[in-house]
């Protein structure tokens, strides 16, 4: 009898995972359509393509959400474990950021950069899913879900800020070189991109702070003080300091344009270093061997 129940559970879990993969593939196709359609919509100011890009991105985000929910439900956990799942969740956050920006600022220009990244982030997990399982039972707790979700939101915000700063730079150059013909009217006004860049960072800072704090408290309770000597943890602290400094400099000196891009790029590199530091970390690993 117990074996039967186990079989049914295994069967259902396999079914959910198969379905979640299907939804993720649907989402990838829809994101791909949106990424393609956003080019004529933004670059050639063709409103019809906008009507393709936005519904496709929205539907993609919906199927993506369904896929992630099913994956986590089937795995009986509340957070992504492997790199593929994490990338997929980050992709969903970026797609959501694109939709929010479009609704708020009536511009699809960010999609030119964001949507291809979303496609890249989801295409790997959709066609080559990870197979890691988790080793720690505490990972099912909501605190760790918050830790991961908040940090992913902070990364997404930083990426968005970097793209906004890049758009600012392109528009600034065009205005300075007096290349202001209609063809490039897809670029949002300087003040809009500047606001987006700053607001994204201001949104990301509390997310990163809270995410790191929650992670630290959970680590302290489960692993002990040795956790704080780990390279991953030290780099995370450096990342937080860099993130905060960047906001401070932007707010107090009104840093914009080229220097803002350099600063955002530097912090982004730090974030990438923190991400890849998992390989060096002895304790920030949750996969079963």
């Amino acid at each position, binding site marked *: 009898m117990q074996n039967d129940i186990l079989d049914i559970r295994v069967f259902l879990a396999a079914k959910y995972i198969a379905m979640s993969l299907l939804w993720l593939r649907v989402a990838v196709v829809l994101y791909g359509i949106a990424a393609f359609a956003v080019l004529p919509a933004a670059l050639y100011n063709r409103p019809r393509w906008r009507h393709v890009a936005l519904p496709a991105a929205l539907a993609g985000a919906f199927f993506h959400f369904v896929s992630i929910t099913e994956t986590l439900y089937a795995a009986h956990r509340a957070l992504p474990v492997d790199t593929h799942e994490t990338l997929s969740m980050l992709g969903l956050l970026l797609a959501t950021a694109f939709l929010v920006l479009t609704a708020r600022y009536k511009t699809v220009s960010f999609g030119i950069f964001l949507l291809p990244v979303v496609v890249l982030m989801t295409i790997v997990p959709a066609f080559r899913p990870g197979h890691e399982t988790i080793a720690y039972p505490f990972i099912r707790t909501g605190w760790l879900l918050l830790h991961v979700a908040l940090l992913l939101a902070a990364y997404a915000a930083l990426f968005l800020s970097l793209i906004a700063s890049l758009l600012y730079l392109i528009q600034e150059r065009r205005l*300075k070189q007096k290349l*202001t*013909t*209609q063809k490039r009217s897809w*670029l949002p*006004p300087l*003040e809009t991109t500047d606001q987006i860049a700053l607001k994204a960072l201001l949104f990301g800072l509390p997310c990163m702070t809270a995410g790191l704090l929650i992670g630290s408290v959970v680590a302290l309770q489960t692993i002990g003080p040795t956790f704080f000597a780990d390279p991953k943890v030290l780099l995370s602290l450096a990342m937080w300091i860099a993130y905060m400094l960047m906001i401070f400099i932007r707010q107090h*000196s*009104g840093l914009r*344009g080229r220097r803002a891009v350099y600063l955002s790029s530097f912090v982004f590199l730090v974030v990438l270093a923190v991400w890849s530091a998992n390989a060096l970390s002895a304790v920030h690993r949750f996969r079963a061997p």
Partner: protein
Amino acid sequence: MSQIKQPGSLLLLGVNHTTAPIDVRERLAIPISRLADATRTLAHQPGVREAMILSTCNRVELLTVQDDAQPVATTTLGLLNFLHDYLSLPAAEVRPHVYEFREREAIRHLFRVASSLDSMVVGEPQILGQVKESWNVAREVGAVSSMLDPLLQRAFSVAKRVRTETHIGSSSVSIASVAAELARKIFGSLAGKTVLIVGAGKMSDLAARHLIQQGATTLLVSNRTEARAEKIADSLRTPAITTGVIPFEQLHEQSHRADIVITSTGAGQVFTTEHARALLHRRRNRPVFFIDIAVPRDVAPEINKLEGCFVYDMDDLQQVAAQNQAVRSREAEAAETIVTKEVARYTDRLSRAPAIAAIKVLQLSAETIRQQELARTAARLAAQPLTPEQQAAIESLTKSLTAKLLHSQLAALRAEITPVDREE
């Protein structure tokens, strides 16, 4: 059997900025307050079935549907007489400036006017609103019906198609509007932005007005003669606009308050790189836009190299305007193609309208006779009413007979209609 009404012939008579000097256009212009009365009067002229008057600062046009029985020369003369009677303007004085379009050419002209292809500034958006206003007036006085009503509705949809499928109206072509457009590229919405005018001049005044139209809410003026500055500030002050004067000697201390600086003193180097650096420092690097319309230039061109400073002089603005004008010209060609296709489609439909109307009349008439005969038969058989099956059989029989009797006539009429219309 009802008669098929003859459609009438379309005649458009008018003057515009290319055919008549402004003094003639001024005398022909009909103010909006008198438009309803003028349209009503025109619609009551002999031989005029429907009428609409379009009167703007650049054109006065009389669009009419005339009885087909009217000789061509009489119709033109009739409209000229209307102008003479209504505006007390001798026909001989107007005649040399008048253009006249009939049927297909009138449709084409109307579509071009509504699409802003016949405007002084091609692509300007006001004309469509003016045509709609004239149409509304004509509808209110009952001067438009079966022919002009659908024609004007078609003209509006053609204009909309031209707007959406081309970029004819999307770029600015005047110096002042180019300046406002550039400001929008820097600041997005101009709501809450401050404009500083340095020096006095018509062009700077015009540019400031454009920026205010786009949402700028604060206007500062600085001039060597303070009284002149006060005068400019007063002339631009409205309940929604805050204005102020900056003494010229305090210009560099206070110019950081402005997001957009328009200079037109012609005194040369009013703003140097050092001034701009100090200004940026005070603004904490928030962008500032210098519009330098002075010759010699007031703003050092090197300022454009500073991060956050954007300097456009007269040549730059003219260059952008010229580029935009070229874009409009290219788009106008695409718009002309759309208009040509739409004219062909509309005239084609018009030419088939009598056949469609004849089919409808024929079918209606046959159905009326059939119903009358059925009612008469039913009355005769009142003593022995038919069963539902018998009634259905008679219905079917009469319908079949009617269809067969009409077949050859309907087939002949349908042959004149293209497959597209049959589907409709």
